[in-house]
């Protein structure tokens, strides 16, 4: 890995945090894809995961908590030449930002979304997140979390997402490979990355994940939706990682002629004569 392209910057993450590996894997994936930093835009919300754009020398947009997807989608619409990647937390993506997730999947803009899923709110010091297991005790959930945990893989598959994958920050090589596939996918791709939070999640630790995750075999066919759904339901003793579901379909840009063809929106020259013509409607 060429350090000069993506130098190591100082982070504010805890030593041992799963985020470090995610950052490294992302840099490696971009090198595999031969992306220059200036061609890439990393977008985030707010949280520990949300600090990632600070630590990589690509373009970066750190927005509001829960609101990473809308600006990411719009930036891609504005400039299709940008490789747009979202890095955000589970609270950010599935909690505060849940509505954008649903509708971004439906919109199918060609961006890649990495959810750093530590099953906890890290930055705000350890409240339950939408993916926290039932019974997970925190300061705000003294009786343990009561809500059914959200299964982002299932959700994405049934909403029609064309690329649905899970990875584990403890397996950086595999993570990188999945990232590369996700970024290559034409359309919205969701990768939920199991990410141990060593400071606040004392349940879902490295050990816990290590005991459970297994890679989907080569015989697994991610094109079969019902099978994918069945596979995505696995959570507990065994947790599959890899590409759970994959489907090629036209992305947002493919459906709009003038976006698909010619220069990116940002570079298109406006024909003022055409606009003037519109006044005729009002005669």
């Amino acid at each position, binding site marked *: 890995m060429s350090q000069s392209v993506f130098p190591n910057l100082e982070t*504010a993450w805890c030593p041992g945090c799963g985020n470090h590996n995610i950052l490294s894997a992302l840099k490696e994936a971009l090198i595999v894809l031969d992306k*220059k*930093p*200036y*061609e890439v*835009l990393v*977008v985030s919300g*707010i949280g520990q995961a949300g*600090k990632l*754009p*600070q630590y990589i*020398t*690509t*373009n*970066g*947009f*750190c*927005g*509001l908590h829960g*609101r990473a*997807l*809308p*600006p*990411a*989608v*719009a*930036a*891609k*619409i*504005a*400039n299709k*030449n*940008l490789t747009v990647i979202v890095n955000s937390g589970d609270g950010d993506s599935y909690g505060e930002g849940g*509505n*954008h997730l*649903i*509708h971004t999947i439906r919109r199918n803009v060609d961006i890649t979304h990495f959810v750093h899923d530590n099953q906890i709110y890290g930055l705000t010091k350890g409240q339950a997140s939408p993916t926290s297991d039932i019974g997970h005790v925190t300061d705000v959930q003294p009786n343990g979390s009561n809500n059914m945990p959200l299964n982002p893989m299932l959700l994405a598959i049934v909403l029609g997402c064309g690329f649905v994958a899970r990875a584990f920050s403890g397996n950086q090589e595999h993570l990188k490979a999945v990232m590369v596939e996700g970024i290559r996918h034409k359309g919205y791709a969701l990768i939920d990355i199991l990410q141990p939070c060593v400071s606040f999640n004392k349940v879902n630790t490295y050990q816990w994940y290590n005991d459970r995750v297994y890679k989907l075999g080569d015989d697994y066919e991610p094109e079969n939706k019902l099978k994918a759904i069945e596979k995505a339901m696995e959570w507990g003793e065994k947790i599959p990682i890899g590409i759970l579901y994959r489907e090629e379909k036209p992305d947002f840009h493919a459906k*709009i*002629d*003038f*976006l698909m063809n010619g220069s990116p*929106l*940002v570079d*298109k020259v*406006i024909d*003022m004569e*055409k*606009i*003037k013509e*519109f*006044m005729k409607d*009002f*005669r």
Partner: protein
Amino acid sequence: MIYNILIGGAAGLGMETMAFILEKILKRKGFEIFVTQDYMSRVRGGHNFFQIRFADEAIDSHGDELDGIIALDKETIQTHLNRLKADGFIIADEEIDFRDARLYSLTLKSTAKTIGNSKVFGNVALGAVLKLFNLDFTGIEDVINEKFQGEAAPQNIKAFNEGYKLVPEKYAIQAKRKDDQILINGSEAIALGALAAGLKFYSGYPMTPATGIMNYLAAKMNEAEIIVEQAEDEIAAINMAIGASYAGVRAMTGTSGGGFALMVEAIGLSAMQEVPLVIVEMQRPGPATGFPTRTEQGDLKFVIFSSPAEIPKMVIALRDPEDAFYQTHRAFNLADKYQIPVILMGDQFLADNTRTVSPFDFSKIKNNRHLSQQIYSETKEYRRYEITDSGVSPRIIPGKMPGTRVLTESHEHDEYGHITESGTIRNKMHDKRLRKMIYLKAELQEPIFVGEENADTLFLTWGSLSNPVKEAVKLLNSRGKDRYGALLFGDIWPLPDKLLTEKGKGVKRLINVEQNATGLFASLIRDCTGIQCDSSILKYDGRPLSSQEIVSRMKGGE
């Protein structure tokens, strides 16, 4: 002469089409037109109406007194009869059972049936109206042919013809000049202004009375090659617009008070990230869902002080469709120049009401993106938040310069966009952002002054009430006793105070005229200038304040 005709009935009976046709015909004949729409928040039933005011002279307001009523149901007559002039007229179908000397009870429906298309009865009525005004047939066919396809077109023309035969001539009015105007409402004018500014991305979520802007832009999407995206909610809408603007295209979003409430967090983001943004806020009476289809100016302070913390921002109130076009265009230039959110405030009265104006002059406007012309590289480093005297940092489009990154942050940050915890840097950055307000003050447009110099009474108003107040000043001055003037504010934040201070001196009475209950603008003026209004003309029942009502309130011991 000015005439005022009302078309009323239950929703779904076709008043929109009737009003559209009558407006167009009158306009093509060279009249000045001012149309107001009053509708309920429902799709069928209830009571809605249009008021078409037309004249052979300039008009700047709707009117309360009616010359004619076209009644599609009895309720229309009952509701509006008290406003009908003694020598006015009513046109209604013979089936409507009502007694009034002014009523022409006509065979609208049966005539339509004879023509073979029961839907054309409205144009039978319009034919009768044209006859009453002794207006000839020229131009009618064109309008009908533009609106209707196939056999409906000749049927509708026939309807006009038949209607023409049903009544005698009553008035004599002739337009003074050839038609060279356009007939447009506030929503369309805003949309056109944005297009003229080079808008490429509009994201919004439907909300009355802001939906008209999105509708117009969407209709032009393919031709203009712009993206109009219906977001899942207003939060997505504004955050999308910010993302698009960050990526380099001119972007806008629009909504009404309730949706704007969901956007205020991101307005702070736009200010913090220094990403230019134009937001349209179309007011309606609130709080909460309130009166969705009616008008008010109750959001003034809410909008001016929207966003947590202290941020640079500009707020411009739109006066009428013409102003809306030019100011929307200006908003984009200002947003780009200062890298701030610029908020355009309108209301239902502005959005929905149609009037004649001169075609917009594209030669008067110029688009300036204010992008940095510098070439940056690994050696000449780019600092997104470089601290400058003006508070504005060089802006470049991400993804264009190898070796250069554009890092934009929501946390407090240093010149590079890196998160900081330093108090010293915080002070510098906060100062830098707020410094823009100083320079922005030099950009301000003073309010428009109308009326007599050395007025005894000076009205202060803002936004869409400008024209009704202007007309009221004219009416009041024509009475000859006292001298009246008015300051019609467009820019409201920061508040331009030069003309106000100058004109305010020596005036006997300062009266704020506002479409709200507590006199928000008067309070803003007091806050910004120390100047205190002496009394207020306020209205907040959801119906627009007319020049006539202002005048009559002045009579009423004001």
